[in-house]
């Protein structure tokens, strides 16, 4: 019996061990223990090592190669962004090494929970933008639908007193439907008059922002009594999203289950886009509307579905913030989750599962930036520059294909 056969015989046990390792790693990591990441990494290494021993080595190698190739461009973009950020810091008189050390330590180790807290709403808005993108639409006004969702959550959360298993799904659903409804008008205008959704959703975003201040004043925002004048009354504690601290006593007290909902939603959206009829129609319209039309797919209907699902997802981000983290709605606070959702979606090239990772990266940059600002006296808006430059890797991807085409052309010429 060779080592390979023994391994094959006990492969079930190895896989159970792997799942345990990865699962405990994820739980540890989510509940703000950095060691969890090492567990996950270990599980990945074991998984590939196992396959390497059992299967054909060439297949495994090519698999690793293709993943590495996919990661190459984002990683190159991040490296370029980090270098540009360093240059900016040197020019403006800071030490980039200590600043970046603080950024990384704050974002991925010390304040990891803040990164996750930041990531949860970004996943929702990122999914929203990505979903619309798949249909060839640009939901640039995700910020507005976010406000609508947050207002619905605050309004319902203050008065809706029932068992949380009933109230929380109902609030998510109601807020989501309101978000969809908010995107109904841009969709209608797009289909009926051809008004570009970039302009209409953007205008609706501004309208929602101003509407939220009116809303807050009517739901508790009283400048004379409260210490923070533009805040609604708090949401009933029974409507709060489950916090990890209730299950794992060592977890950070602010971390809530919104991140889990966000990740599950991402996988659901991935399923919706890749394996259902509606998803296929949306992708067909997005990639070639004329061809989709000749296939009998109604473009108008698809535009409606895409924009309304996008509105639903953005509104969920608002619910997530109000029920999970803030427990009230703050006014005049430029949250920027809508705008960052665009970045996150572009960065993941509109892949729903990719959005999870880019959101976490963005969240970690924000959390790390705050930590850096506190400890290093570098203002955290340097993070905005790093983000903008990382985003430039969207362009860098095109740069890569551009150069690739140029090279290919040269090669064919030489032949």
């Amino acid at each position, binding site marked *: 019996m060779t080592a390979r056969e023994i391994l094959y015989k006990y492969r079930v046990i190895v896989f159970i061990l792997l799942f345990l390792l990865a699962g405990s790693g994820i739980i540890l990591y989510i509940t703000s223990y950095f060691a969890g990441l090492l567990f996950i990494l270990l599980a990945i290494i074991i998984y590939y090592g196992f396959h390497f021993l059992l299967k054909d080595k060439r297949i495994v190698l090519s698999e690793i190669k293709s993943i590495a190739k996919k990661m190459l461009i984002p990683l190159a973009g991040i490296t370029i962004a980090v270098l540009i950020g360093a240059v900016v810091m040197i020019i403006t008189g800071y030490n980039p090494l200590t600043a970046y050390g603080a950024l990384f330590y704050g974002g991925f180790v010390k304040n990891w929970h803040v990164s996750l807290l930041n990531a949860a709403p970004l996943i929702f808005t990122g999914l929203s933008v990505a979903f619309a993108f798949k249909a060839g639409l640009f939901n640039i006004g995700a910020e507005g639908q976010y406000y609508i969702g947050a207002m619905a959550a605050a309004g319902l959360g203050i008065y809706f007193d029932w068992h949380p298993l009933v109230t929380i799904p109902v609030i998510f659903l109601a807020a989501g439907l309101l978000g969809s409804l908010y995107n109904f008008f841009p969709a209608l205008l797009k289909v009926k008059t051809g008004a570009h959704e970039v302009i209409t959703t953007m205008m609706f975003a501004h309208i929602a922002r101003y509407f939220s201040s009116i809303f807050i004043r009517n739901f508790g925002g009283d400048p004379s009594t409260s210490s923070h004048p533009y805040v609604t009354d708090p949401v009933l504690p029974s409507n709060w999203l489950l916090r990890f601290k209730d299950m794992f006593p060592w977890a950070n007290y602010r971390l809530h289950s919104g991140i889990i909902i966000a990740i599950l939603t991402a996988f659901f959206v991935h399923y919706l886009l890749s394996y259902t009829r509606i998803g296929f129609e949306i992708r067909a319209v997005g990639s070639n509307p004329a061809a989709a039309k000749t296939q009998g797919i109604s473009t108008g209907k698809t535009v409606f579905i895409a924009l309304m699902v996008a509105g639903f997802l953005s509104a969920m981000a608002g619910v997530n913030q109000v029920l999970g983290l803030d427990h009230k709605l703050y006014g005049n606070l430029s949250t920027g989750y809508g705008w960052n959702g665009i970045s996150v979606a572009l960065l993941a090239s509109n892949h729903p599962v990719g959005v999870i990772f880019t959101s976490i990266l963005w969240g970690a940059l924000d959390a790390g930036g705050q930590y850096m600002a506190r400890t290093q006296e570098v*203002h955290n808006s340097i993070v905005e520059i790093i983000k903008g430059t990382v985003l430039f890797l969207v362009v860098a991807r095109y740069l890569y294909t551009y150069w690739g085409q140029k090279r290919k052309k040269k090669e064919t010429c030489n032949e």
Partner: protein
Amino acid sequence: MNDFFTLFNVELLHSTIRLSTPITLAAVGATICERAGIVNIAMEGLMLIGAFTAVFFAYITGNPWIGLLAAVIAGGIFSLLHAYATITLHLDHVVSGAVLNILALGLTNYLLILAFGHPGTSEPVPVSLAEYQFAVPFLSQIPVIGPVFFNQRPIVYMSFLLIIFFTLFLYRTKTGLHVRASGEHPLAMETIGVSVYRIRYLAVIISGLTSGLAGAFLSIENSNVFTSGMTGGRGFIALAANISGGWSAVGSFLASLFFGFAEAFQYKMQAARLLDLPSELFVMFPYIATVIAVAGLVRKSRPPKAVGLDFRIEKQAD
């Protein structure tokens, strides 16, 4: 009700002209840009860059004219990024514009802190362009039209001149013809030996210059400070003005007047306190007007055929 009608006076028209200026400037830029076939939603960001640069240089030198010049140049330089991304790299126009808007917001916020030490707003500039308001002799004596059009501030006059200039440019010059052609049928342009890429670069830079000027208007003429994100969606309103103005400079100006009126009117309504409504409802007014306008109040013309489409010179390998 009588109070309501007293709102409609010369002063309202005067501020309509004044407040429509940044939208006009950006919309004229958008007209040139879209006529050449490039969609530019980065104007929001370009205006922010212009507004910041104007305040920064006006604050350092104490001379608002230098600020104005710097704003225009900065807008032009920043628009090069959009041109490079969309024309040379064939990136989607809307994506590139959105990325540049985000980048511009981050950049101006960072520079604001570096230059003035605190987030939110800058220090006021020592001399703003508002102090250069002057009445044109003779013309300002005409009743109604005189005080409305000819008793304004410098950038407003510049916007008048630019509308005339760009109308002539589009329809009376060879380059203008090339601009229009590269938006309608770029391949034909390339066939007769005119570089579509070069024309499109020119058009994007023009929109950058005018957006920079619009930004300067917001920061050193209409007020005297830079505020984070002070453009408030005007870049997008300008796009709407360009579309409802039928892709022409004069049409853009007329549509911008409508948006300028919406803004002037909401300020008036806020100040007059005729209706006991939250002030935010009035602030929303220009945005609602924009939605109505793009939804098709004016639908007399069609967009340039190749607008938003990528143009790639296919060089045959053999």
